[in-house]
């Protein structure tokens, strides 16, 4: 019942993939669909108040600035941040993590320092540290992933003896669906004197997250995975850390004063926002957060739990399919499948011919696939607008794949 009503909020879900073939969108871990209210918020912005912000005294500029900053306040409350000064707008999770690597990493890490990551990271939380490691001779260490897709916390405790400066880990794996015990990981890191960065790209969109409860030092997420537009993401950082960090990019808005050969940076959060910001996108993001808050993140989580539990039950009927990741209950709405008889690309392509959108490949987590000794997998992922009937359609599609390749 409830599920039906969320569904109607998303115009694209009324679309047929081909005439007569309705869209079954099971690729929300890659990017979510957008509700009418978000699309309309941006449309309205461009039709009625578009202007550059912060420096303007005219009416449009004041309206746009107020809308932009009120969206920041909403997002700040959504993740329970201490103040809007702790909410930096970036393009996406990837840029948020790069910002920390470039600004904090280059200032505070030195030759031989250890950074702990995990084997289940998305490339966004691997490559920035690899770039830094190669420049500054940082040592990267990895918390191993068990066969059932969980982090090995005993091994983590051993790694902490290396006195790492940072532990950077994903809150929820975009492949395994594993929801990591973030609070415990952070507490242990702090005890060992390390800071923490949470890749929250898959958590903030799917269940309630409080940076205060987690005591996270940095936390990164993207609007496009949580009903918001592309091109906008957030880096949350504790105020004292952000204050101590040098600017990342230079330009307008991030400065207080500029002379020909020197500048002084602006206050937080502007210090890290160089150039004309993603004004329409921030406003759209604000509308997305309003939308999700209106539903309640516990309710979003409940819908997904129901769907993944049902999907995992149903998929057991196919002995040809093995799953990556832990059992339902300890995982989010992500179903990553491997079939001996059919390649993930073929599976995805055949499902597409049934109108079902799933993803095939390494999902930007090559090392994790290497860990599980598969080159790629087929991933179905759920969000608040999906339904049990769509799970049934997925199963019918999978049955057809198996028939074709057996």
């Amino acid at each position: 019942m409830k599920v039906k009503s969320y569904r109607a909020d998303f115009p694209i879900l009324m679309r047929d993939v081909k005439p007569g073939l309705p869209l079954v969108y099971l690729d929300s871990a890659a990017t979510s669909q957008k509700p009418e209210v978000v699309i309309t918020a941006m449309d309205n912005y461009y039709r009625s108040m578009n202007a550059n912000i912060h420096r303007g005294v005219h009416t449009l500029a004041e309206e746009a600035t107020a809308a932009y900053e009120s969206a920041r306040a909403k997002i700040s409350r959504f993740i329970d941040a201490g103040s809007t000064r702790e909410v930096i707008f970036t393009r996406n999770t990837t840029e948020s993590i790069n910002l920390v690597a470039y600004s904090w990493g280059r200032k505070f890490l030195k030759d031989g320092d250890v950074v702990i990551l995990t084997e289940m990271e998305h490339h966004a939380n691997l490559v920035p540290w690899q770039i830094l490691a190669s420049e500054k001779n940082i040592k990267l260490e990895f918390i191993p992933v068990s066969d059932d897709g969980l982090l090995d916390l005993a091994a983590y405790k051993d790694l902490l003896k290396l006195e790492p400066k940072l532990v950077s880990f994903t809150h929820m794996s975009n492949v395994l669906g594993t929801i990591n015990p973030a609070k415990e990981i952070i507490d242990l890191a702090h005890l060992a004197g390390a800071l923490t960065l949470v890749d929250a790209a898959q958590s903030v969109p799917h269940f309630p997250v409080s940076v205060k409860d987690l005591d996270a030092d940095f936390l990164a997420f993207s609007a496009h995975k949580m009903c918001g537009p592309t091109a906008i993401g957030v880096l949350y950082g504790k105020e004292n850390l952000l204050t101590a960090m040098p600017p990342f990019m230079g330009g307008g808005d991030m400065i207080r004063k500029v002379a020909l050969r020197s500048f002084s940076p602006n206050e937080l959060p502007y210090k890290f926002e160089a150039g004309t910001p993603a004004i329409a996108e921030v406003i759209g993001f604000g509308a997305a957060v309003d939308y999700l808050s209106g539903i309640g993140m516990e309710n979003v989580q409940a819908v997904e739990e129901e769907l993944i539990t049902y999907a995992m039950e149903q998929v057991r009927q196919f002995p040809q399919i093995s799953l990556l990741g832990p059992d339902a209950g300890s995982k989010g709405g992500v179903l990553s499948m491997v079939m001996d008889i059919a390649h993930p690309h073929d599976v995805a392509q055949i499902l597409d011919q049934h109108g079902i959108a799933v993803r095939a490949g390494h999902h930007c987590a090559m090392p994790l696939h290497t860990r599980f000794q598969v080159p790629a997998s087929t991933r179905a992922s759920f969000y608040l607008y999906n339904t049990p009937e769509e799970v049934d359609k997925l199963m019918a599609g999978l049955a057809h794949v198996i028939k074709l390749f057996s």
Partner: protein
Amino acid sequence: MDDLYREIIIERYKDPQFKKELDPHDISFEDENPLCGDQLRVDLRVDETGMITDAGFSGHGCAISQASADLLMESIIGKNIEEVKKMTKQDILDLLGIELGPVRLKCALLSLKVVKAGVYGLGEASDALVED
């Protein structure tokens, strides 16, 4: 509905005719498609006139890439390598008898890319080899 998965593609995937390594060979080349982890090697035997006398592929990949490799091997045996150099994307699509979106096109063209890199004696395969 499964217009991409014509019988010939599924058949060639399940039961390829030219999936073999040639030892000895005159030309051998290997490449991969990191997007999907696919990996393909092609071995060729060429006589003194430049004619391809035998061809085989090995590695792993999706039905489209494996079927396209199998059909390509079949089609180049008996051809001169100068002819092979002139083969295009369209030749592969004709062999497969389907149309493909950009992502799957890469799968379909991997074998031609490997063959061309081999006959040109290149150090590295490039997508430019199979762009029309």
